[in-house]
């Protein structure tokens, strides 16, 4: 039993964190958008494009000049990260233009963005690299390396706490730590700053915000820029910070939708968003470690674990376990009266 706790549970928790991070970042991305009153079912597409841009540009930047690259060595991964964030912001701005400026249908815009991302990444990837839509394998300075936190080695042999610190808390890459930092930051922005207050207001009652002389359009665009940045980080994590070490076709594999589910699960709040994505990350970790799960009474197939986040979300949405109430003005274009 003790062995299970120290080894299996620790290992599971560690991979749960790894699985949770892209979900967490995408979930927070959705939080800014939806809190500002813009539905975003295009998280998946933005993440995918970011993962591709990250993988592709990091590959170019890291390749030696002789091989046709830019020979940027250790800086390559940062070039990739920048490209990922930029690409994601671009898509987010298309969504903003369609939803805010043109007052178009936000759901349809999201669907289009997901489609566009699925197609363009393979199309351009094949054109650039001729590898069936993949990017080259990334090495060394082209990826985010794990960071060993101070004293992790020294404390490793301390029972329980030492191994938790060494195996679970230490040894992740920078985006993981950044992700948790952004949770705190989001909480602070949302509930302790003027911008956060206004953003929440614009998602509930844009008319009132407008009456107070604050630009609804500007607020919503700002929120969607943040959404773009966070989706960019989430995508960059997938191609630059995981064992995949590069971009693969459709590599987001529905994570944008799980993030959306987590957002509802968390009732559009940042701290619960962290717990929700950690829970969904744990489900994914269990699903990938055990093909089937023998609970003694029943044996659950792996696909059940895969579907569990979605099922839980439907249950939450149905309001049987606490009610999930979305921002009131979500999905409605704001028309300023003249």
């Amino acid at each position, binding site marked *: 039993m003790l062995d299970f706790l120290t080894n299996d549970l620790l290992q599971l928790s560690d991979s749960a964190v790894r699985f949770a991070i892209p979900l967490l970042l995408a979930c927070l991305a959705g939080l800014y958008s939806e809190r500002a009153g813009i539905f975003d079912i295009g998280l998946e597409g933005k993440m995918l494009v970011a993962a591709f841009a990250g993988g592709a540009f990091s590959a170019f930047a890291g390749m030696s000049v002789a091989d046709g690259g830019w020979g940027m060595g250790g800086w390559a991964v940062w070039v990739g990260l920048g490209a990922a964030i930029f690409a994601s912001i671009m898509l987010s701005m*298309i969504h903003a*233009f369609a939803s805010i400026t043109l007052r*178009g249908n936000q759901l349809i815009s999201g669907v*289009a*963005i997901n*489609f*566009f991302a699925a197609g363009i990444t393979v199309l*351009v990837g094949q054109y650039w690299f001729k590898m069936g839509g993949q990017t080259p394998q990334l090495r060394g300075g082209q990826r985010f390396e794990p960071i060993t936190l101070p004293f992790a080695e020294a404390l490793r042999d301390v029972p329980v706490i030492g191994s938790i610190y060494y195996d679970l808390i230490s040894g992740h890459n920078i985006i993981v730590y950044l992700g948790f930092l952004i949770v705190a930051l989001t909480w602070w922005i949302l509930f302790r700053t003027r911008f956060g207050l206004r953003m929440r207001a614009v998602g509930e009652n844009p008319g009132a915000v407008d009456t107070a002389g604050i630009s609804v359009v500007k607020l919503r665009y700002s929120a969607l820029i943040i959404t773009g940045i966070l989706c960019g980080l989430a995508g960059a994590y997938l191609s630059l910070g995981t064992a995949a070490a590069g971009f693969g076709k459709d590599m987001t594999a529905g994570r944008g939708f799980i993030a959306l589910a987590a957002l509802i699960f968390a009732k559009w709040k940042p701290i619960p968003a962290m717990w929700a994505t950690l829970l969904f990350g744990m489900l994914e970790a269990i699903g990938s470690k055990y093909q089937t799960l023998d609970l003694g009474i029943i044996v659950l197939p792996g696909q059940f674990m895969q579907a569990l986040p*979605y099922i839980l979300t439907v249950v939450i949405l149905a309001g049987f376990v606490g009610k999930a109430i979305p921002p009131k003005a979500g999905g409605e274009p704001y028309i300023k009266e003249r």
Partner: protein
Amino acid sequence: MNKNLPKWVDLGLIPLLTLMLAFAVSGLVVLSIGQNPIEVVKVMIQGAFNPFGIGHTLYFTTNFIFTGLAVAVAFHARLFNIGGEGQAGLAGVGVALVMLSYDWPHWSIALIVGTVAAMAFGAAWAAIPAYLQAKRGSHIVITTIMFNLIAGALIGYLLVGPMQAEGSLPESAKFPSAASLPTMYDMLGWFGIGFDKYAPVNISFFLALIAAFLVWVLIWKTRLGYEMRAFGHSEKAAVYAGISPLKITMIAMLVSGALSGMMAVNTVQGEAERLLLGAVEGAGFIGIAVALMGRSHPVGVVLAAFLFGILTQGGAELQFTLGIPAQMITVIQALIIMFTGSLENMVRIPLEKIFLNAGKRGRA
């Protein structure tokens, strides 16, 4: 939609202009990957209409008519059914279950039984999101997305578990051959007309046209259709007129799910004759584009479905002839959805201004 615009502008000019914008941007994408857009169009049209291509084009058209009608019916009641993918997937399971449960003696019986099963399973998969929307206020877009993903996991489980045929492939056993639906080749053969023998288009194509006609009757010629449109126009007014939101939401979504499901008659029963993994191949989502382009009218849906059939088959030819990944078509579809759906006001607002000014001058 808008009183400022003549009907021909709303139903004809705007879709045409937005489509041309989408194609123009697609052309830029083609250029940016180092290909010649004119060459691409040539290859696509050739690929979609040559004697071997047309049978595939019509096969894809059939799928898109079903999923397009499904989205359109829901749109009329102002419900966005994004769950066609899951509904069609589950319908495939339904078709496979009945086909494998009994040795059906003749294709005509198999067609009826298969259609009923497809409709029932498709409708059932739409029923829960519909009920949750009507009764508990859960947003139908989110629940149908979740149901797509749950369906994916469920079908994945069935095809490596209970429904898997012998062997290691994730697919069901083959259906009895007597139940095999007549293909276009068979049907035209009855009249002595030749057609590509291996083309997948089958009797479901006519089923799709009949479905389109019945949807037209339902929406514009029945009391129920009137209630659906009234509900879609203004929920408050509809409730005041004694229309039950629960009833309309349920019926619209059940019809929508059944229509999505009927796609399985074409793909699972008509073509593959077994249940395969990924049998829907995004047709559920393309239905959204089809319904948008077709202005949710059955005639428009059939035309738009044909356009998307051409694109899909032409895209397959692109890969074959020019080595451009088939994802080119996904990009074009995305751009069509974007321009006809969410960016439509880019065209509509200037046009409204033009017609408003022209109207003023006419009166002066």
